[in-house]
């Protein structure tokens, strides 16, 4: 019986990468069809197939690691590099939107009334709901760290409680932001102020939802005994992502909400 002479994981052939690429094609061309031709069929197809691919690909990774034991320390190191690089790329993604904000706000044009916030825009009070949202995300950073320590110490009850609390705080943030969006006196169409505000905070909100979903999956896996006190990289990756989301919010709060008001 042949055994490999290395500690890397040679994965089984998988259809998910190519199906994922096809799903991306459907989603992007679906956006075009929705924007310009008033048809949402392709977009719906794209989003559903994207969801199916993500579910099955990540399900397979859980099978390969937890149930088949392929995630050696070498493999885990590669996954760590991968997650760090991915989060770095997301940081650059947000950097672009911050650049756009400062481009417009540091030298406001005459069309805006030569001032920031532009004439007629009533910005949200940074000391009200946005400050509460800051406190919520900071607290969730504490609870996710508490969850991690509980996992390494083998304390199952505390780990479940702390991770549940983190997810609830994430949902609370999302609910409050949704309410703020609904109640805001300005819209995305209100000059470059609206554009920069809603695109930057909107993508951040999307990342909060992604992070909360990742943490929720980790909670299910935690309850089903997938993690050990030494080996729980899925949880660590989710925690890194969550801290990243928190840091982005802090930058958003300080620049767009506070300095920009």
């Amino acid at each position, binding site marked *: 019986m042949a055994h490999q002479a290395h500690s890397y994981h040679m*994965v*089984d*052939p*998988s*259809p*998910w990468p190519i*199906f994922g690429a*096809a*799903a991306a*094609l*459907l989603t992007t*061309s*679906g956006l*075009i*069809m929705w924007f*310009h*031709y008033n048809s949402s*069929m*392709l977009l719906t*197809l*794209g989003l*559903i*197939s994207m969801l*199916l*691919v993500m579910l*099955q690909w990540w399900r*397979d990774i859980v*099978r*390969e690691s937890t*149930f*088949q*034991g392929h995630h050696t320390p070498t493999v885990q190191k590669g996954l760590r590099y991968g997650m760090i690089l991915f989060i770095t790329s997301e940081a650059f993604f947000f950097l672009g939107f911050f650049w756009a904000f400062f481009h417009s706000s540091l030298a406001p044009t005459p069309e805006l009334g030569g001032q920031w916030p532009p004439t007629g825009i009533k910005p949200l009070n940074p000391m009200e709901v946005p400050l509460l949202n800051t406190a919520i995300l900071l607290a969730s950073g504490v609870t996710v760290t508490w969850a991690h320590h509980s996992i390494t110490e083998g304390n199952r009850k505390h780990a479940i409680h702390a991770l549940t609390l983190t997810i609830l705080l994430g949902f609370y943030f999302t609910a409050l932001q949704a309410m703020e969006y609904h109640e805001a006196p300005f819209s995305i169409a209100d000059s470059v102020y609206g554009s920069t505000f809603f695109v930057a905070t909107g993508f951040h909100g999307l990342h909060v939802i992604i992070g909360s979903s990742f943490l929720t999956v980790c909670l299910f896996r935690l309850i089903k005994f997938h993690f050990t006190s030494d080996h729980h990289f899925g949880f660590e990756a989710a925690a890194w992502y969550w801290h990243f989301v928190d840091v982005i919010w802090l930058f958003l709060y300080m620049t767009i909400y506070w300095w920009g008001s």
Partner: protein
Amino acid sequence: MYYRFSAVTQRLVGAAASAAYSPQKADGLPVHLKRGVPDRLLYRTTMALTIGGTIYCLVALYMASQPRNQK
């Protein structure tokens, strides 16, 4: 309790592996089809949606690239 250690010999009893699914069985199935029927269903659904969608997408893009008649 479903399982326990037997009295003198301390052998684990009552914890037989599930007949339905054994993740490490060398049955030649790739990981994305390891559980059999539910995996196949999901795989075929995903394939139908992506491949069908890609064809629909190419047709739609072909039609969108045709020039409109000037009014």
